[in-house]
């Protein structure tokens, strides 16, 4: 065991305990034996033998020591075992070694050899993976690409960021696709600025947004913590910025490369003082694309900061999805002005819906002032008590407007409600839907409501949805049940059960299935903590 250096000490300890309890030696053979006892079928392959056979066959003795080819051999054997055709592998080998044709040939030869070896030796292997027919218009994307593409399509032309896992992949993606075509126009381009820190990133986003540009930043927990003060500035000055928040496990550095949903309450409350914001969460990669466009619309329609919640699980997931359709997104710029005729423009002029026509830097007659202090209609500092109430109420009223005008299906997705109903948010969506499907096959009905709008909270809509529900089950990837707290705050019906996971590992459908089943059988504790994954 000591010869496997990258193993975490605590993990090693657990492994030793496990192997000892199973009476197995502390060796790889011991682990394999233990696995076998659990019902795992083992198919031993000696790659050394394959290599030396290859060397003999090609009369190239060097191959005997070519352990660098093990990856290719292992993938080939797996493909052969599972009955999948080898052409994709051969093609990628060709691509990777496109500049070294000899090496490409050698690897392809080895791949074929290993493939044939596996198909001959394991012809009776009963589990086969079948190729599904290719659907037209399918793309393979990672989560961070979905929000990146959403930004390009919805006209975000400025993004600043400070490197952080897992958020910065999106910014790098934007930079590698810096230019693109725009209908009947000059080539379009996104300006991507790597800043000195996240404070600068959000400051630049605000500055750029003041020019009428759609601008955004993308970050994770530690970076978002640094942005809190400027978020309030954007709030009091009604600047429509978008912050894409790719959550990971906190607190502090936490589990920096792992998954978590523990920034919900922080996103809702970040920054001092009362100011309106919208917090909106996507449940999967496809939603990531379309929701990004919505977030810019919310920001500009209601003139406030929008925090778009994503997470590490979505960011790093690779999925094949239906090709995104930019025609399905709208671009709503709210009360952004193109032209101003009056000589007495007031940036924060009162209006019945709380929204003032918005000027931008560089617009004739459109001069305005902004300040982090409370201000009058022009944007000049004012500590007048009457003005203070007017302005605070004006800004706050935009949240009521957002709730009133946002389509219900954008507030929450209703996957069917029943006596037992799961309420959740974000990337738990996939495993929950799978688990519900598994239960359905056993004749057990569980409903599911995925909340997307988390601030302002869609209380009325949820109340109407959950009217007939007897048992509310909160599922989320954090320790304290942050959505649960929101539900308890806003609904009369308190959460009955919590299913929580905070190991940094993503949820699986089977562990959700198990926990839900316990609840249905009335055998569950109020709070179940999921632990699957090493």
């Amino acid at each position, binding site marked *: 065991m000591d010869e496997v250096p990258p193993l975490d000490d605590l993990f090693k300890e657990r492994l030793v305990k496990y192997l000892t309890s199973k009476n197995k030696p502390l060796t790889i053979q011991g682990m394999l034996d233990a696995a076998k006892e659990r019902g795992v079928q083992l198919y031993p392959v000696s790659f050394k033998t394959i290599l030396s056979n290859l060397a003999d066959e090609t009369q190239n003795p060097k191959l005997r020591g070519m352990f660098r080819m093990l990856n290719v051999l292992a993938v080939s054997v797996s493909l052969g075992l599972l009955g999948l055709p080898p052409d994709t592998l051969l093609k990628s080998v060709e691509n990777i070694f496109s500049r070294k044709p000899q090496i490409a040939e050698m690897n392809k030869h080895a791949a074929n050899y290993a493939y044939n070896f596996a198909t001959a030796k394991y012809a009776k292997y009963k589990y086969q993976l079948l190729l599904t027919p290719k659907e037209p218009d399918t793309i393979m994307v990672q989560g961070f690409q979905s929000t990146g593409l959403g930004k390009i399509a919805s006209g975000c032309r400025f993004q600043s960021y400070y490197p952080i896992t897992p958020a910065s992949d999106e910014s790098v993606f934007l930079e590698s696709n810096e230019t693109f075509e725009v209908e009947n126009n000059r080539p379009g381009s996104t300006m991507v600025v790597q800043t000195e820190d996240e404070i600068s990133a959000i400051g630049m986003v605000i500055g750029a947004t003041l020019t009428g540009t*759609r601008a955004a930043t993308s970050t994770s927990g530690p970076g978002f913590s640094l942005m809190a003060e400027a978020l309030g500035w954007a709030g009091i000055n009604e600047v429509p910025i978008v912050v894409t928040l790719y959550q990971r496990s906190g607190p502090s550095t936490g589990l920096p490369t792992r998954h978590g949903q523990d920034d919900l309450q922080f996103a809702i409350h970040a920054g001092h003082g009362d100011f309106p914001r919208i917090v909106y969460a996507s449940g999967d990669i496809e939603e990531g694309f379309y929701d990004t466009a919505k977030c810019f619309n919310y920001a500009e329609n209601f003139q406030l900061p929008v925090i778009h919640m994503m997470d590490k699980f979505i960011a790093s997931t690779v999925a094949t999805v239906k090709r995104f359709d930019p025609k399905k997104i709208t671009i709503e710029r709210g009360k952004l002005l193109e032209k101003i005729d009056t000589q007495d423009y007031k940036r924060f002029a009162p209006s019945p819906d709380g929204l003032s026509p918005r000027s931008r830097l560089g617009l004739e007659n459109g001069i305005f002032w902004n300040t982090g202090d409370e201000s009058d209609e022009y944007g000049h500092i004012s500590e007048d008590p009457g003005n203070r109430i007017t302005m605070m109420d004006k800004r706050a009223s935009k949240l009521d407007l957002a709730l009133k005008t946002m389509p219900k299906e954008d507030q929450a997705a209703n996957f069917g409600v029943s006596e037992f109903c799961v309420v959740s948010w974000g990337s738990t969506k996939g495993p929950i839907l799978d688990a519900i499907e598994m239960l359905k096959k056993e004749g057990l009905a569980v409903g599911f409501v995925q909340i997307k709008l988390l601030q302002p909270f869609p209380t009325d809509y949820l109340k109407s949805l959950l009217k007939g529900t007897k048992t509310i089950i909160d599922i989320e990837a954090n320790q304290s049940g942050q959505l649960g707290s929101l539900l308890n705050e806003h609904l009369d019906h308190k959460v009955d059960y919590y299913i929580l996971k905070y190991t940094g590992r993503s949820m699986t459908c089977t562990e959700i299935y198990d926990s839900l089943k316990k609840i249905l059988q009335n055998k569950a504790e109020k709070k179940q903590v999921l632990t699957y994954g090493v």
Partner: protein
Amino acid sequence: MESNLSDYKTEVHNDWCPGCGDFGIVNAIQMALAEMEIPRHKAAIFSGIGCSGKTSHFVNVYGIHTLHGRVLTFAQGAKLANPEMTVVAAGGDGDGLGIGAGHFVAAGRRNVDMTYIIFNNGVYGLTKGQASPTLKLGLQTKSLPEPNVNQAVNPIALAVASGFTFVARGYAYDVRQLKDLIIAAVKHRGLAFLDVLQQCPTYNDINTRDWFAGMDNIDEMTKKPRPRIYKLEDTHFDPVVHIDSPDEENEKLTQALIKSNEWVPNYLENPPATQQISYKGKSITDISRILDSLQV
């Protein structure tokens, strides 16, 4: 266009203390904008938090009063997105060299075409006179319970080291020279830094107007004060960096790089703020090239 100085002044009530050096700096900014005849909607003053931060409210152009220490970040974002704007950032010494020092250095490296003015009074004026990063070691201004235990940062040296491409120092009570310096700074293509020595008669009772004038330092022969400030111009100092022997190889390299490629983003010709993004509420951005590359 005829520009009047009064056009650049707002009627906002000013609550700076009588005799504060900030008045001189605001005047110089207004005079510079008027003299350059910059259309009011083409100029923006960004300011930090402090007494100096109020500056943006007194100038009748776009005025963005930002956060403590963060003025450069907001200003750069705006300038990058809309390079047509004349952008002037202004703030205190605490704002720019204390809490905002990281942005100061980073901005120098970035060299975005704008002007940054620090109101250097040696104290945190707005918070009642604590030591600022430019207060000299051992000095004890009015509010300090003990003499200052920190070395002073030299804003000029820091600016040069950080990569600012225009570095100058002015004096709040020499408004005319200050105006000229601001004009030169605005006209400079790149990030210009102006360190302005500014009196805070309320909290800095050491670096006062008399102190600058050398009233405490009388020449025994002439019986005249020996001023602590002088004009660099008078010493025939040449601030321009001359390249005496242009490196031939580098010149060739530059020419070879000039190619026409419309796909290289040119943010001056096609800045973010002027790009059209929608038509009748629909996206006009074509992402099909990227989607094609992801097609399976």
